[in-house]
């Protein structure tokens, strides 16, 4: 059985300027694998993740024919049941980590709280766990960072703190929204290898949202490519560079390259037909 099954998911917002259709009928399944989602800014990647966790507030609307977690329909759960799903069974690393952390609580308290919410253990053990986790995500000075408030850490540190906090309850599914966008390659590799271990050894399912095509093709098993709220192409991650959709090709061509300097970068000529095309 797949871990997650999504059929015909739609997310829309009523605004004063009319309805914004952020996600327009996407379907996919997630197994014990690393599933990448790439696509341009505004294509609906974050809203897909938030919709699964029922984190879209009115006036946002979510509709789906099916959204099942290990066979259990998420849409029929009460808000209280949903709270138990969040964190323990599905957790999400938000795109704006520093904004998603509690500004008036120390980093250490927050990570410990995330752990204690789902594990019956002493505060002392929680503290040790939290320190271990910070070390695992390559935080240089974990003792200091435990005592720091979110505004006292750097962008990349905030990202890793969020990852530590989301992994500590040992979820079945992790939705990671641009989790490593502020990290350089070496730290990125470390963080990814932790996620990778969880997928391989504990059978976690990972949804990895990223705009870094090279990273996704290297790290994931499968990739969904989104454009204007739809999935326009699905492929094996390792074959991403052979992708056929003109949008995907365009993305691949606009990467700057250190070894091939160019005066101007190629930009996409967006074709309105891509938005209409079926998944």
């Amino acid at each position, binding site marked *: 059985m797949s871990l997650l099954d999504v059929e015909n998911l739609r997310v829309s*917002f009523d*605004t*004063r300027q009319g309805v*914004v259709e952020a996600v327009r009928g996407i379907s996919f399944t997630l197994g014990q694998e690393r599933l990448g989602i*790439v*696509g*341009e*800014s*505004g294509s609906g*990647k*974050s*809203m897909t993740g938030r919709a699964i966790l029922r984190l879209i507030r009115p006036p946002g609307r979510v509709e789906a024919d099916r959204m099942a977690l290990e066979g259990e329909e998420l849409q029929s759960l009460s808000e209280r049941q949903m709270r138990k799903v969040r964190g323990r069974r599905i957790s999400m690393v938000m*795109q*704006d980590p*520093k*904004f998603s952390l509690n500004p008036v609580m120390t980093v250490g308290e927050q990570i410990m709280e995330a752990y204690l919410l789902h594990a019956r253990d002493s505060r002392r053990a929680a503290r040790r766990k939290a320190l271990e986790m910070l070390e695992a995500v390559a935080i*240089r000075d974990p003792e*200091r960072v435990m005592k720091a408030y979110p505004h*006292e*850490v*750097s*962008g*990349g540190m905030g990202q*890793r703190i969020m990852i530590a906090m989301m992994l500590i309850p040992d979820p079945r599914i992790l939705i990671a929204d641009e989790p490593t*966008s*502020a*990290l*350089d*390659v*070496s*730290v990125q*590799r470390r963080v990814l290898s932790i996620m990778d271990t969880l997928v391989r050894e504990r059978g976690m399912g990972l949804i990895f949202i990223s*705009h870094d*095509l*090279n*990273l996704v*093709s*290297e790290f994931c098993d499968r990739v969904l490519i989104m454009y204007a709220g739809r999935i326009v192409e699905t492929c094996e991650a*390792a*074959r*991403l*560079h*052979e992708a056929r959709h003109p949008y995907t090709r*365009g*993305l*691949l*061509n*606009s*990467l*700057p*390259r*250190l*070894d*091939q*300097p160019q005066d*101007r*970068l*190629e*930009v*996409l000529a967006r074709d309105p037909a891509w938005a209409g095309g079926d998944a």
Partner: protein
Amino acid sequence: MLDVDGLNVWFGAPANRVNAVQRASFYVETGESFGLVGESGSGKSTILRAITGLAPDWSGRVDVDGRTIYRDRRDRDFYKTVQMVFQDPYASLHPRHSVDRVLSETLKLHGMDRIEWRVPKLLDDVGLGAKFRFRYPHQLSGGQRQRVAIARALAGEPRLLLLDEPTSALDVSVQAEILNLLADLRAERGLTYVMVSHDLAVVGHLCQRLAVMQSGRIVEMLEVEQLRRGEAEHAYTRSLLAASVAGGRTGTEGGAELSPAATGS
């Protein structure tokens, strides 16, 4: 345009002081683009924040456009000259101000005319278009917010732009548009940039020179040309370089193999 000499920045009381930047020195010529790369937490954002007056405790000398900056004495002229794009666009945008309000107030503050014309023009420049004009920050995606922050920084037509990971939330096609826009502005108006990025390919594209930071210090300073030739000396720069070139190789030619390519090619 910018001359930083022996800059130290620290946080907190002496007992648990964090020395975030130690004796950093660099200069940036008018019309030049300078890159700052380095480990996460090494002090890159702190340097930019100190220049714009957002880090209270610092020592050393900072000259902008030939004028030395004194503690807490940045005037309107300063902000007319210098603007910054923050790493964290959510935190830097007022949650209850629409995009229109953010941009038009910034334009007014800088004494710009024809605001009705400039707001949509700015949005167009960053690839957003007029349909985003009346949205609020929470109604935007991560990359859309980052572009509003870039538009706001450009609104006052500054001469020195400090960019903290300006394209890290953007997909590569939008990143390419923004990098082209920055290059055009430099060509048209002689803008000067200091850009923090963890992506060497991005720094290599826009900048001529760069400094590499580790643990609060600048450990290496080099030309992008040297970087391309693989002439970096510091171990951290070399490891970054090896990984960046390997990653960048798979750009167009297809095939999944990410060969650790020769850095000298």
